[in-house]
């Protein structure tokens, strides 16, 4: 849409026209502020932990387990050199399969969420599908972070309560 708008502006006589093609989604994904009626409503990007441990397809799970020692209940996203999410290894699979590689036990193509999705929507999805963590990525599949279902639920409830009291 924006390329057509840029060309249209040129046809209307504007000589210095630029297209921010990555658009609003790129801006929100970076955690930058927005204006508008939804600006105060927390979204997944605002709560996702970005400093998560990742692993590669060939990583041995005993090594992955050691890396996740500080957060042993968290799953481990399997990424490539471009940080694209290829799979997800659940924490119980990490503990039970030390001699195997991430590729052997990972869930291929896990459900992922965009950072601009409202917490309420994510909370409902995670609850309905009994998913413990939301994997947050860009539209291109690049990992942004993880958000636990408990955290999403708690912050969504707080947000609803705050809005109800205002």
């Amino acid at each position, binding site marked *: 849409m924006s390329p*057509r*708008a840029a060309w249209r*502006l040129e046809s209307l006589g504007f000589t210095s026209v630029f297209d921010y*093609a990555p658009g609003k989604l790129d801006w929100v994904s970076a955690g930058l502020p927005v204006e508008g009626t939804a600006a105060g409503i927390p979204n997944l990007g605002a709560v996702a932990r970005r400093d998560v441990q990742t692993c590669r397809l060939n990583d041995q799970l005993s090594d992955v387990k050691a890396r996740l020692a500080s957060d042993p209940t968290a799953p481990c996203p399997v990424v490539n050199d471009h940080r694209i999410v290829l799979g997800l290894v659940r924490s119980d699979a990490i503990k039970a399969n030390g001699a195997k590689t991430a590729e052997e036990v990972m869930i291929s193509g896990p459900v992922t969420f965009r950072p601009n999705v409202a917490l309420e929507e994510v909370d409902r999805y995670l609850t309905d599908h009994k998913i413990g963590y939301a994997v947050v990525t860009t539209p291109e599949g690049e990992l942004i972070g993880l958000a636990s279902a408990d955290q999403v639920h708690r912050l969504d409830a707080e947000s609803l309560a705050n809005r109800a009291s205002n």
Partner: protein
Amino acid sequence: MPTTIDRSRLREMLQAGAQLLEVLPRREYDEEHLPGAISIPLRELNRATISQLDRSRPVIVYCYDYQ
């Protein structure tokens, strides 16, 4: 020919005084837009509506993503 820019260049240009134009439908703009952006939905982009833009300054357009 319009030039495609990334987020880093966008921020530089905004600091230098460029104008920011969202071309998504008005409802989407009302919900959420980049700070300082004005709204002219693509379908309303014409000689009358562009009068709110300053021709002497660069204009940066954006929508949701690469659509």
